């Protein structure tokens, strides 16, 4: 929990958040299976900060992100955005989320409408009053596109005419065009090759400096986080097992699972069956 002076600087506050899904039970259709994706999670993101969430696939990272975006209703707990509750999906809450939080998803191929040219795709993120004036709209679209290192020659392209890295840049430009306070990045690098990954990290680091962006980044690779994040939350089985600053986490990891992630170098290689960590209840 954040109190007093800190609250003003807090952008996002997640208190005791739980998310579970109902799935059909193959053995007893009267009693659906409950899958607990996120369990009793607390997290604070301050303005200008970059928080990374690391964990293996299926640990609940994306469910956590989708809940913050208002796509999934939490089963318990609350989410505060700039001090206002946004965890119940009211029109007002969703409006606040859409205004302040923008996502960039893992798969840039799927994130862009294949029938929309890049210029229109980014223009859609701009407010209606800007879209009404064609020349201002064009200028603003170009500005945001150039922020991400692309140029006017890409404006008329369809998504399939761009490379994976370029598409991801368009997705970032589109998210930035909404001028959000918080950018949620769901494994933004994992669909890219190593060189593109580094270029994207450089871009995000530069945008952070220039626009004082706040990031909440999900990844399963700790090395990426080391460059970008100020703090890292390690997620396992829907829970944060450790939240610490990057230096501390890399220097003296507290939790066995974090040590294992660090030792493996990449979350992907983790042998979680042999983990010394507590098993889910």
């Amino acid at each position, binding site marked *: 929990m954040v109190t007093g002076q800190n609250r003003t600087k807090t952008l996002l506050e997640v208190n005791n958040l739980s998310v579970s899904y109902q799935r059909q039970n193959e053995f007893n259709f009267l009693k659906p299976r409950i899958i607990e994706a996120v369990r009793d999670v607390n997290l604070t993101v301050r303005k200008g900060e970059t928080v990374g969430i690391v964990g293996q696939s299926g640990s609940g990272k994306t469910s956590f992100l989708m809940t913050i975006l208002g796509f999934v209703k939490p089963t318990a707990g609350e989410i505060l955005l700039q001090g206002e509750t946004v965890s119940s999906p009211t029109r007002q809450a969703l409006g606040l989320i859409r205004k302040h939080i923008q996502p960039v*998803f893992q798969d840039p191929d799927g994130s862009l*409408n294949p029938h929309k040219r890049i210029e229109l795709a980014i223009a859609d993120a701009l407010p209606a009053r800007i879209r009404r004036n064609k020349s201002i709209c064009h200028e603003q679209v170009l500005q945001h596109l150039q922020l991400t290192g692309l140029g006017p020659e890409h404006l008329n392209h369809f998504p399939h005419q761009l490379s994976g890295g370029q598409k991801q840049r368009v997705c970032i430009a589109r998210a930035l065009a909404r001028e959000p306070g918080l950018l949620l990045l769901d494994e933004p690098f994992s669909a890219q090759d190593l060189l593109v990954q580094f270029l994207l990290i450089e871009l995000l680091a530069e945008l952070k400096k220039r626009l004082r962006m706040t990031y909440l980044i999900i990844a399963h690779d700790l090395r990426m986080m080391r460059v970008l994040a100020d703090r890292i939350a390690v997620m396992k089985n829907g829970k944060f097992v450790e939240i610490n600053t990057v230096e501390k986490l890399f220097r003296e990891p507290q939790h066995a699972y974090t040590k294992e992630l660090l030792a493996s170098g990449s979350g992907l290689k983790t042998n979680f069956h042999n983990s010394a960590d507590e098993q889910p209840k």
Partner: protein
Amino acid sequence: MKDWYYLLKKLWRDKSARIGMLIIAVVAVSALAAPLLTPYEPNTQDLSIAAQAPSFSHPLGTDLYGRDLLTRLIYGARVSLGIGLCATLLAVLIGTTVGLISGYAGGWVDNILMRIVDVLLGFPRLFVILLAVGLSTPSVKIIILILGALSWMEIARIVRGEVIVIREMLYVKSAVALGISKRKILLEYILPNTTDVITVYATLLIGTTIIVEASLSFLGLGVQPPDASWGTIINQGRIDPINAWWISTFAGLAIVITVIGINLLGDSLRSLLNPRADQN
């Protein structure tokens, strides 16, 4: 615009699509340019030349009232293609709207609309069409309305299925996260991505509609004499199928060849636009 150009180019490279397009082009052009192609009037009777076999001056012969059969087939193409196209357009319009709303809204809206579709699909189609046509005064407009209003259900189902898939796509989720209005998401993010399946289904539906229209006209419930339609011409040939064999035969061939052309194009479109379909 460029997309259409590429699609046409791809279609032209496909043999069956090329044949289909050529057949449709010949029928459509002759229907449009009917008065330029033939010196005869389609409805002017001349009993002195009634039921003449194919000859140089009447390549497909004349009918029982001495009208040039080729002329009547060409004018009949106007009616058959016109009804096929207009009724399909109406069906696509209704079906797409219902499918879009049903798939995107979900919940009780989806439930109600899909149950209506189920009920309508449960009716024997031909029986309902016959009943509806029988209860009204037959005219081209009425036939278009009835055929269109009774063929949209499959399109609605197909579009609904597509919308449910597309709704979960990341680009729609991104659009929702950007705060784009539902109307805009439906019209600019979802609808353009369903056009492929709609195009394929609509093409095939034109063929089916032409056959249904011909059946109705054959039964005397469709286009009324003296106006020419392929169905009415076949019906006329029924009176003396042995001695005046050319009447029903050529009208029947016109239907068969046109529908084959449309189906060839439809099947090629399906495999070109939908990579999941057969890749032969």
